[in-house]
């Protein structure tokens, strides 16, 4: 019973559009996408590319992409090449914000979520991995990856 309640609670948390934390901008999930920009403004693709390439932002732990000069790329997941042709900006935005809503078993971290996590190290607690501005920059960049 206790377990069920916890599960329901967790579910309820997943369903509400806006996370409880004030630190995060509100957003609305429609189907498999977040159609509107988290910040209300479009992102910058050049900044987005730099964010994806920067090791501490972790994308290249798992992904490879169209980065011929980058030696350290991962192969735990699909290449980012062509992501902009496969997905709309809204779909890419939800994928980054909280990939676990698309696939609860995914290993891809939720980049814009602070709840439902366990034993987060103090330095990272209560902070999303990327800011809303960074999410928008990455979305804008991924959208340019047409092939």
């Amino acid at each position, binding site marked *: 019973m206790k377990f069920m309640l916890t599960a329901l609670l967790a579910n309820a948390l997943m369903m509400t559009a806006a996370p409880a934390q004030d630190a995060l901008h509100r957003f609305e999930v429609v189907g498999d996408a977040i159609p509107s920009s988290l910040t209300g403004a479009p992102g910058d693709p050049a900044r987005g590319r730099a964010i994806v390439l920067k090791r501490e932002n972790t994308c290249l732990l798992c992904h490879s992409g169209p980065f011929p000069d980058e030696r350290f790329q*991962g192969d*735990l997941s699909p290449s980012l090449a062509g992501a902009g042709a496969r997905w709309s900006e809204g779909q890419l935005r939800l994928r980054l914000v909280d990939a676990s809503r698309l696939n609860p078993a995914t290993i891809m971290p939720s980049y814009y979520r602070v709840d439902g*996590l366990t034993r*987060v190290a103090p*330095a990272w607690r*209560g902070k999303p991995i990327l800011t809303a501005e960074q999410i928008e920059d990455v979305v804008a960049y991924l959208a340019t990856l047409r092939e």
Partner: protein
Amino acid sequence: MTSGWASLRRLAPAVFVLAATAIVTASAEIPLNERRSGYADLGRETKAMQDDDTANPGMLAVLDGEALWSAKAGSAGRSCADCHGDARTSMKGVAARYPAFDAKAGRPVNIEQRINLCRDERQQAKPFAYESRDMLALSAFVGLQSRGQPIAPPDDARLQPFRDAGRDTYNRRQGQLNLACGHCHDDNRGQRLAGIVIPQAHPTGYPLYRLEWQSVGSLQRRLRNCLIGMRAEHYAYGAPEYVELETYLMWRARGMPMETPAVRP
């Protein structure tokens, strides 16, 4: 260049403390005949370094440990050798059996803790600090006496709850990246994480010399590195959670040969 995936750190102020529901995900355990030591993924040069005792930096710790073995210590004024004699016979296969259940503590102790029990109770000397030079040296020396021996967790029912707790920790998502150990070491073993081959996390070689550390370190230091990479809170050295993880990892690697002191990138 740094080779460790876990050296991805950034300091940021803590803002919130959040209550969280723990979710245990079940990764499929690796079939016994598909297990491979981290050694198998080493480059040729690193393999050669581990294989050649005159090139293996871990052997320096072993030599220090050998000296400590016969040095009298503590108010009892006795050396390990005074009671245990020649380590080549008395310590053969011992490290391959740890963590083992300690009746007094009512829980498993790892080999470092077992050595410290003798420091404390038999030598009446100050226990060695975790990761101290002396602790690593003696555990490397004791560990060497099991090199080539199969990992043999004791068939002791009292260990079971601790092994299970270790398995749960291993399969629990944690940290800001929300990953479980098994996501990498079971589900994605052999894949490349930022270019680094993900090993199966077998504790065959500890304490070992890690090129990234440029020093010898314990299994718990390695586990701490992975937790930091996951952006999870790490435990204090010697914490029950680490010993439980070790108990599970040794069971998971049962039958695999010990390599102490191994070399890893």
